[in-house]
């Protein structure tokens, strides 16, 4: 069955590209393919996509593989070959089909070594390291940022716990029962007061975290749309309030926009966490209170200067939570001029976010 073999190679290639294709998806796909008109490109494409891909972020990788596999395959000179195969298919009894579907499903275990993601498969934009990507790739990655922001926003809005809503408000219920002769017809439950989330972001926009700061600024811009109470600050060796500065424009220009419109570059022009933190503390400390969640984006590469960690300690005492997102993989922390370990005691968590996938994972842990 050359077609099924061809499909199998296709599944294999999808897995190589990091798209998780499970056995049950393969089975669905094979079942579906037998039901449709193979000559119809849109139809064929849609059938494969809908059964194999369950997340829009894989679309591009899928499209590439699909085009490589089926563009020439669906060209006119191969049509006849396919048609004869289709007839063959029609002749085969249903049971046969089920068996061969089963076989093809089992015959291709999840990638090599049981993993759905082969080492070479770096095509998913979510998994590309911030450190080494081109501007075009950055633009593609950036497209996913609003999604992340929305998920984060959904997270902050405290989920009503299911058990809570069944807690009986005894006093109200009894009082209301007086009007029905002591029979508690209307039950009242305790409504918990929900806190509005308050977010404060501090973002390093220096050259060493160029790509990451593009992403984090885009994230901040998206967050500003979802939260009512949000303040954003950026720094290199001077700190500035950038709240509302990013409301419009292309996210890829955000960093330039910040550099032009906010005073983030001070006397030296080299990243200075210590000075920036102290300055932040001096000017903006009154803006933090018990309900605030502080998000810091930066690599903590301080050019061998004072850390100013006491500021972070003070911030920690003032606010609800402090989270630090570091674009470097944990292996590079505290190497060279990185002083993340001086700050980490004062954070509720420090996350390594070398790519968007890790960033998303860490946001999920909050």
């Amino acid at each position, binding site marked *: 069955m050359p077609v099924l073999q061809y499909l199998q190679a296709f599944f294999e290639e999808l897995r190589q590209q990091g798209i998780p294709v499970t056995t049950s998806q393969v089975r669905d796909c094979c079942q*579906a393919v037998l039901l*449709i008109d193979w000559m119809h490109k849109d139809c064929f494409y849609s059938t494969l996509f*809908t059964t194999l*891909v369950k997340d829009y972020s894989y*679309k591009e990788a899928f499209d590439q593989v699909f085009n490589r596999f089926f563009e020439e395959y669906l060209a006119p000179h191969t049509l006849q070959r396919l048609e004869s195969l289709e007839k063959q298919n029609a002749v085969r009894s249903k049971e046969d089909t089920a068996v061969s579907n089963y076989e093809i499903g089992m015959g291709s275990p999840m990638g090599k070594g049981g993993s759905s993601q082969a080492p070479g498969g770096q095509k998913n934009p979510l998994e590309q390291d911030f450190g080494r990507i081109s501007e075009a790739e950055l633009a593609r990655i950036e497209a996913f940022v609003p999604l992340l922001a929305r998920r984060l*926003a959904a*997270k902050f809005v405290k989920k009503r716990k299911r058990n809570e809503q069944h807690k009986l408000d005894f006093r109200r219920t009894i009082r209301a029962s007086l009007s029905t002769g002591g029979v508690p*017809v209307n039950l009242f439950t305790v409504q918990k007061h929900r806190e509005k989330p308050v977010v404060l972001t501090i973002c390093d926009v220096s050259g060493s975290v160029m790509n990451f700061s593009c992403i984090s600024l885009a994230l901040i811009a998206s967050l500003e749309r979802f939260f009512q109470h949000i303040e954003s600050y950026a720094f290199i060796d001077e700190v500035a309030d950038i709240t509302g500065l990013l409301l419009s424009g292309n996210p890829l220009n955000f960093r330039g926009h910040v550099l032009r419109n906010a005073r983030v570059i001070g006397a030296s022009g080299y990243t200075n966490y210590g000075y920036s933190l102290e300055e932040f503390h001096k000017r903006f400390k009154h803006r933090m209170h018990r309900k605030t969640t502080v998000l810091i984006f930066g690599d903590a590469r301080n050019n061998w200067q004072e850390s100013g960690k006491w500021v972070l300690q003070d911030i920690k005492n003032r606010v609800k939570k402090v989270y630090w997102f570091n674009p470097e993989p944990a292996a590079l922390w505290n190497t060279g001029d990185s002083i993340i370990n001086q700050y980490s005691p004062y954070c509720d968590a420090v996350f390594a976010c070398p790519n968007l996938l890790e960033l998303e994972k860490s946001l999920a842990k909050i």
Partner: protein
Amino acid sequence: MDSIQDIRDKMFQAGYICDDKVATVLFLAEALRKPVLVEGPAGVGKTAISQAFSRVKGLPLIRLQCYEGLDESKALYEWNYKRQLLHIQAVSNQNLSVQEIEEDIFSETFLLARPLLKCIASETPTVMLIDEIDKVDFEFEAMLLELLSEFQITIPEIGTIAATHHPYVFLTSNTTRELSEALKRRCLYLYLDFPSKEMEQQILMLKIPQLPEQLAEKVAQVVRRLRKLELKKPPSIAESIDWAESLLWLGKEDLDMETALKTLSTIVKYREDQEKLERIIYRERDLNFRG
């Protein structure tokens, strides 16, 4: 079994324009009897697709609107507590045994069927729409998962109710959170994006038959450009229909700058967005929205 083209035609008659890709997914949903998970930005017609599908099939649409804190008592079933209480009061002097009363108050008369139970218990096949599934919590999603694979609901006091017909299931999601892999695997995946200019023009003309072609084209074109701008909320298809309709009511043959400025409030609903568009229109003196 309908062909892809048939489905397209029928969906068109039901007031929904879809391309071959969408029609294929609908075709497979019917052939493989699988739920369809529809994702995409707000206002691209995720909900409308199931409504149109129910019209095509001539089946009732049962809708479950999800929200934060939705639980089984609002989605599956609930005992009618007030009625039970009144019943107990009413029969309290009739010397009935406890068992008799219990049998009474836990019968179907006192059961409030919520959308999912309604759907399962229905005598005829139904189209089930679970709207904005991403709003519910994981526990509920897990419960739903079981429901979608078994199509039966167990009520401890009554027993198990199994569906006589498998309903057609549509789930929509705005992707505010990642859905569980297990749920995604069970579904056919359909990503709806904003339509192309030509398709939107067709949609406008289908929804508003009196609309002149030239105006439809212009509205579709401008709305498409608006969606490319960074707006707080890009205009949905419903909003572009509203816009075209209000232009028609105003007796406009064409969309010019002045009319656009006056009617902006029908397509953008945030003050920031409106101000931004006004600024661009005044600056560029046209409706090209380049920047």
